[in-house]
């Protein structure tokens, strides 16, 4: 990685979610004594979020059979589930991390490894509509408007809607949006552009387009170490490589093996199985290959 993650603890093992190599880091990041323990802020009683789906309010609805409206409680879990799907997809070069403040806002960064935008490192934010999954498709906004036909040169928003004209629950998932955000940098589409200049240049003068892109990439990368645009503990931030901090973290990322949170030795969780793969008969595995 040419760009180094940093910005303290979070940017590496939490705020910086490399789904490709380190699946599951998010779930079970080892506690890291050198950085001290992260304690979740205590949540004042009685202001806590919905943990009471069976509240009379929702109750009446569910009982009457109207399940169309979901409590934020379900929304929370839906988003978590979406995030889980993202991790499972192992999207190349894409990292996301839900914000601390709202599960509806995800921070992300995308690394472009070849093509016109090679070496580009683009930070972005995903905004998910609050009526998810029944609303429109999530929005993707780049921190710095990248020079690209489908990226609004002012707001930095990527035109996602063209790919998801109608957001269909169960069929559309956020990982697809992320995947789309990656694809646009490899397959340039100039139809109905948000940045007409880029579109025209790409069609008419690729060389100029290319140089504009290189400039844009440079610009983006030069702002890499800036403070995150949105002040959030989980915002992704970069810092120059500092071996004292990052070497160990990197090592951890590569060696990390996830295990259950309260897994301890002596617990009978060895996962007994003597079924030969491909068979559905018990004890079909040969004796010698059995686990010792």
């Amino acid at each position, binding site marked *: 990685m040419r760009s180094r993650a940093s910005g303290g603890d979070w940017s590496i093992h939490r705020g910086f979610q490399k789904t490709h190599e380190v699946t599951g880091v998010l779930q079970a990041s080892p506690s890291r004594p050198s950085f001290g323990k992260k304690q979740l802020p205590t949540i004042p009683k009685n202001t806590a979020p919905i943990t009471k789906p069976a509240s*009379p309010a929702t109750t009446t609805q*569910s009982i009457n059979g109207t399940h169309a409206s979901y409590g934020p409680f379900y929304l929370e879990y839906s988003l978590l589930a979406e995030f889980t799907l993202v991790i499972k997809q192992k999207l190349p070069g894409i990292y996301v991390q839900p914000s601390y403040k709202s599960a509806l806002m995800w921070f992300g960064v995308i690394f472009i490894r070849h093509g016109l935008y090679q070496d580009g490192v683009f930070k972005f934010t995903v905004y998910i509509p609050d009526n998810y999954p029944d609303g429109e498709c999530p929005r993707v906004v780049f921190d710095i408007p990248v020079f690209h036909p489908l990226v609004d040169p002012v707001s930095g928003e990527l035109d996602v809607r063209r790919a998801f004209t109608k957001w269909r629950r169960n069929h559309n998932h956020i990982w697809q949006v992320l995947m789309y955000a990656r694809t646009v940098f490899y397959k340039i589409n100039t139809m109905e552009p948000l940045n007409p200049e880029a579109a025209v240049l790409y069609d008419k003068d690729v060389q100029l387009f290319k140089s504009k892109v290189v400039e844009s990439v440079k610009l983006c990368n030069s702002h890499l170490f800036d403070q995150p645009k949105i002040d959030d503990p989980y915002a992704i931030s970069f810092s120059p490589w500092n071996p004292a901090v990052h070497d160990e973290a990197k090592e951890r990322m590569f060696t990390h093996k996830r295990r259950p949170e309260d897994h301890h030795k002596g617990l009978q969780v060895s996962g007994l199985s003597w079924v030969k793969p491909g068979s559905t008969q018990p004890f079909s595995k040969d004796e010698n290959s059995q686990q010792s």
Partner: protein
Amino acid sequence: MSWLSRLTPRGPGNRSSRTSALSSPCTADPETCLMVFDNHWRQVSWVLEQRDPSGSSDDLTAVRNHTDQMLCLLAEERPGEGGEGADMGPILRLVVTENVLERVVQWHLRRGLDPDSQGALLKLFEMLIGQSHQPLLQHKAVLQPLLSLLGACAEPQLGCPLSLENSLVLLLNQVCVSMARAPAVLELLFRTGPAQQGPTNLLIFSLLVPFIHRDGAIGQQARDALLLVMATSASNQGVARYIAENSYFCPVLATGLSALYSSLPRKIEVRGDDWHALRREDWMGVASLVLFMNSLEFCNAVIQVAHPLVRGQLVDYVHNGFLVPVMGPALHKSSVDEMIASTAYLDLFLRSVTETALLKTFLRFILVHRHDNDTILDTLLTRISSNSRLCMVSLGLFRTLLSLNCEDLMLQLVLRYLLPCTHVMLSQRRAVRETDLYGKSADKFLSLIPECCRLSTLPPADREEEPAFWGKVLNSPGSESPAHPKPSTPSRLALFMRQQSTGGNSSTPPPMETVPSSPRGGPSAPLSPDSPIHTVPEGLDWESGYLEYLRDARRGIELCSWACRNWSAPYDGEDPSPNTAPLPPPAPTSNPSLAMFPEHFSFQQGGGGSGTSPGQSLFNGTSSTGREDGRADGRDGGMEVKKVKRDLGEQWKPVGAEQNGTAGPGPPPACGSLLASYGEANRGVSGERSGGLPSQPVPVPSSAPRSSSPDMLTRAPDPSPGWGPPEEMLSSPSEVVERLISELLDGPGQGEGGQIVPGGGDSNIQGISIEAFTQELRELEERVRDRDRGRGEGRAARLQEDVTRDSLSEEPPTPSALDADLTGAGGEPRGETSAMGLVSPARPLGQPASQPYTGPFMVVLFAKLENMLQNSLYVNILLTGILSQLACYPQPLLRSFLLNTNMVFQPSVKSLIQVLGSVKNRIEAFAASHEDFPAMLRKAQRYLAARSKVDWADTSPMGVPPLRRSDSLVKSRKPSLGDLILRHTNSPTRARHAAQLALAHVRDGGQSLHSALFRGGSGGGASGLEKQAEALRVKNAVYCAVVFTEFLKELAALAQEHAVSMPFPKNQDPEE
């Protein structure tokens, strides 16, 4: 005999006296010692060289005295300087060159070894080996005489007198300890056996084997010693082969289990209606069980450390020498008591065994071995449907089995029935892998919480208190209307769920305004892990368990998928392919093993119909088990049942009030009368039954009051304080042996045995018991029974009818009579299920003839679940616990079957949600007919909360298995509740404390519930009895409502957590 007097006081664990006694020679300089030694030796050798070995007793005394002095000097000698330990001290060198020991021993042998000298020699060698400062056994001059002596002990004509057994075992133990320190000795021992010993050249071994199953310290020392041999020989092919081929070690060990098993109590007599499994406290005082568990523990340990050859042989012997010939028949005994006992034993064994190879043997026995055509699993399955303690014990066993996360087991139990995917509509197969992404299933589960259970004890003010929206608006660039308050989600919930264990962030807690709250304004709940729910007021306590459930669900799913990560297939509806999956055994029609257990079957049938049979309301409702059989075309069951019905009609006994006596925290089960009825019912049936159990002698209706017969296992003898609990040792597999070995090595001459007190407690000792807990209720019940006894049969029958009528007016109409049940329609009114809006589409015509079948396990669990309203509290706790255990499994086939409420199943397949829906309707109907239901419900909740607090208060640091600590009432629904009371018995203070606590709560919670329920109970006469019966029915129903509500929350939480769980990669190495 100075040396004897010096040696005798030194028992195991008496090291201090030993060192002080021997400190004097130690101080002397080596040269003086050598001179003294030499001097003694000259005098001894003079005696030894006498022609006549059978010399005078003076000779003997002289030799003994001198030998004693010499060996003390030898033991005290420090090895020579120069490192490597190769340097012998001068005395040892002399002993080796002059072959001192061999000559002494041979002299003794020549003159004929009397027990006295034999004992003296044994002790002398033991002292020498145990205390020597330099390694001795490497030297042939020491080893050879030792083996000669041991050889003499092994000789048939001389042997080892009983009185010397302790010395012998202690010596052998010492030898093994030395050997474990210097494994080379093993080889020497193995090679240098006396020629005349022939094939039994590992003498120490054959001498130890007979002591394997001894109780007390001697047995423990022998087992420790053998374990050391096992560990040392683990890498020695020759020794391992010798043990496997030339010793009786494995057969003795395995068949010894059989012998020990046969002396176990046939009947487990534990008071406490919640009892369903043997905990350590239960069996610690039962000598025979302690003995058995010691041996089982030893087997486990041997399998852990021994050479694969030995391990394999032992495992085979356990299977063929214990499980098949002893355990199998035991599980098939005809009397309910024996079934209960053997099931509980099997459960205990399964929980105690930690070695995979041994577990495999047990599982293979359960899954594959056929006893009378049925696998053990089949037999065990049928017992879940029984209506007694047997059901609870069986459920307990299945809980244990499920906790093993064993693929083979799950395959046999459930998965093979789901594999062909015939239970889902063809179009739905793809949905098998879907998770509950949007909380739809969770919502469905929660929506089934009966209206009447949605009581909130919160003052209404609290409920409205929250702001309706986020305090803080998130700015999204280019957002249409930034001023619009953006309702969002409590992301902290997610973070809490996911990240509570991670380290790091120093960022300050966000200010209040970022604290999200529900836009829809539900009541609040504490979120922080630091605010365990028990700190909040009682009312809230009950209401706010959902987060706990989510956390539990996550933990459960995570552990389960971790445990299943090395399964052979994902079971996701594609792999293994549904098309190639072998057809599972068909539904019960052709599977006799599914026939309900006779007694219980008939019992339930008796209660299952409406109106026709007296007493139905007590076991009543729709007899779902009956329906199971009904689905099997009624077959011969119809006859059976009619006969039973007749029998019941004729000889009905007024067991009414006690029938559900297992219910509630109150009265203990009324085994007596229950059994009597079982017996009768059985009598009526047994002749006609086909398949299943062979017609057995009718169980003796043991209506006799419980007596503390020695044959019964009574609970609660006080464990001896110094007892090293085998179960605890077993529970930490890899450390056990290491620890044991290191202890052995650290404490020479002491062994483990020193601390181990023989486990033979007096089983009649009444230990600390907190039975006072249920005392009042028991008395109450006693009274009922007394009244019962005095009553004529007709009167009772009339009562039953009355109750029946009552229940008919209360319950949703059960359309079918008994016969209808059997003809297969199912007693369940269809309308009930359709009311839930969960109707499966009408079955298309032309379905394949063979109906999809989800297997006996699911069928029996669902049947039991459907009957929830009538089940006792503890049955429901166990039952729902098992179902949620099942729902933790990440395999999509199983997950979708249980938790995907959108899945469309084939019409003949009952879904969990359907079953729950019908329970919900029943609860609501019940509540509607009892105007004081809300009050009773609250009391029941309070009672359960109180119990769980007692549980929670017990932060026992002792070796109690890591039961789920219950932070809240949430946990009280779980199986650990049943263990709650039993658990305290190992600490008198805590037990007393807990008892007081519990009793206090009971008084103000549960007891008053009972008194409320039992009001008028003292009125006497028929109306009193009626009310008692009704009270039990009501009590079960009220507790059911509580458990049901919690269960739904648990299922909803599981559905949600499955959607956010991450699978573990396969074959990730399990150890760090």
